[in-house]
């Protein structure tokens, strides 16, 4: 028994094996493999169009891989999650944010979080229609729990505002809080720093490190801004044109020739 448990400790929380996906003729992701240990903060970088978001969409259940495996460890059992739908992927413990913010803009800040939270405590219709004691109690608990979560991020004072009324930086933050409300083990963030200024980026850096500790999370971070990733990730995987070209610590990545080429190559094209 103890042997078995040990064995599992050593396996990765998330393991991507030989993933492939083509859109028509475009090979968006080719033979990509990497893994994520528990409590790790892994960066996935690469120039625009490298296939980062596509990998994310396969993990979170929006695209089905042409071939390859996505394995996730849940309750000490390793499961293949290739074929799960997005809501099932979330239930198993993976939450994500989007490259383009996708909040429920017309709903309040509180409702955005409560929506995520309530999926864990489904209420029977009967109770909703008749507003039974049990229903009202559950609603109140959900509300308080949401407010507590918002408070950690100083968003509780804005709980009644429409989500669309928040500033860009706060919307990003709220999207992360909403993802956290689904109580994930793995949080995947798609270019959270995109469109942010320097102060906002610095705040975001602190925020990511804080939630990783506070909620005991494993984080997979997509960015195309090298500097940002270098400064917070323990390990980095680099994609270029759908293929993995490097995997290592920030210092290793900085010295890697093919990485420099991929990024510089892009810059020289942009300069022409």
């Amino acid at each position, binding site marked *: 028994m103890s042997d078995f448990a040990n064995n599992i400790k050593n396996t990765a929380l998330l393991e991507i094996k030989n993933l492939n996906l083509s859109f028509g003729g475009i090979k968006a992701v080719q033979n990509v493999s990497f893994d994520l240990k528990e409590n790790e903060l892994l960066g996935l970088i690469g120039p625009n169009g490298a296939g980062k978001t596509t990998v994310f969409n396969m993990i979170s259940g929006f695209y089905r891989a042409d071939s390859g495996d996505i394995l996730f460890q849940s309750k000490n059992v390793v499961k293949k999650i290739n074929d799960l739908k997005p809501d099932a992927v979330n239930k198993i413990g993976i*939450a994500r944010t989007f490259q383009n913010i*996708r909040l429920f803009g017309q*709903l309040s800040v509180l409702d955005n979080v409560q929506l995520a939270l309530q999926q864990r405590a489904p209420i029977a*219709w009967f109770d*909703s229609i008749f507003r039974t004691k049990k229903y009202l109690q*559950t609603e109140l608990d*959900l509300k308080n729990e949401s407010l507590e979560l918002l408070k950690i991020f100083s968003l509780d004072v804005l709980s009644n505002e429409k989500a669309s009324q928040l500033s860009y930086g706060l919307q990003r933050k709220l999207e992360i809080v909403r993802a956290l409300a689904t109580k994930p083990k793995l949080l995947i963030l798609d270019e959270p720093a995109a469109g942010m200024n320097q102060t906002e980026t610095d705040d975001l850096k602190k925020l990511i490190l804080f939630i990783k500790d506070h909620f005991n999370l494993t984080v997979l971070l997509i960015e195309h801004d090298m500097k940002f990733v270098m400064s917070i990730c323990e390990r980095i995987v680099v994609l270029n044109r759908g293929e993995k070209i490097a995997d290592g610590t920030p210092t290793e990545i900085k010295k890697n020739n093919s990485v420099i080429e991929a990024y510089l190559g892009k810059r020289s094209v942009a300069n022409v």
Partner: protein
Amino acid sequence: MINAMMALGLNFITGVANQFSLGSAGFIALGAYTSAVLTKEFFHAWYLIPLTALIGASVSGLAGYLVSIPSFRLKGDYLAIVTMGFAEIVRVIFLNWNYVGAARGYNGIMKWPDFSWAYFVTGSFLILTFTILYHLKISCFGRNLWALNEDEIAAEVMGTPVARSKRTAFMISSFFSGLAGAMYAHHLGYISPGSFGFLMTVNVLIISVLGGLGSMSGSVIAAAILTALPEVLRSLPTGDIDIRMIVFPILLILMMILRPQGLFGRKEIWDTK
């Protein structure tokens, strides 16, 4: 009151869940015919109308559920087309079905013994419809619908069972459309396929939109206004011209320009914020 019930049914699926349905008349017809046939052929007692009405509503609800299974694989406009097609199929079936009078219509449906009973039972059903739909709107289930209304992809990622919620909402909406249909049948005592045409759906839709998509009290108030207005206009001394045909469209156009979100938007009349 009956118009209000019809509008509430549609408003729940189109206003709250943002699934644009054009099948109201079909579900209303199913409830109407079911309840009418049950009282006339089997139960023969007016005090059993509430029971047959609920059976009629259930038939509609079930039909709604069945229609929703393939429909929600499609998005947006397709749902409107499928539900419109469904309503047309229902109408054509009743049009050719001799047992229910085919094109001649179905006559001699059990009616209420007097006005006060009619008002009492219809009113009670309206209150029931309103209360249930309003409570669902502000419940966790409603929150799921509001979320998928705005962004299905994000809702799914948050673990919302999007497809199942839509099917449930559609079933609930069809159920109450059917209940309204039953009230309609017993109120008039006569129904024919002609009354369940596309025009009925349009009427119901206008009430929902005017009251505000997502506002339950808005639907009730808009139904009251739109039902009373023709009566008021009829009493105007306008000679031969049917002034309703002029005032009505002008009113709708003004409404679209001044308050495109309807009287109450998605709020209720008592909501302050």
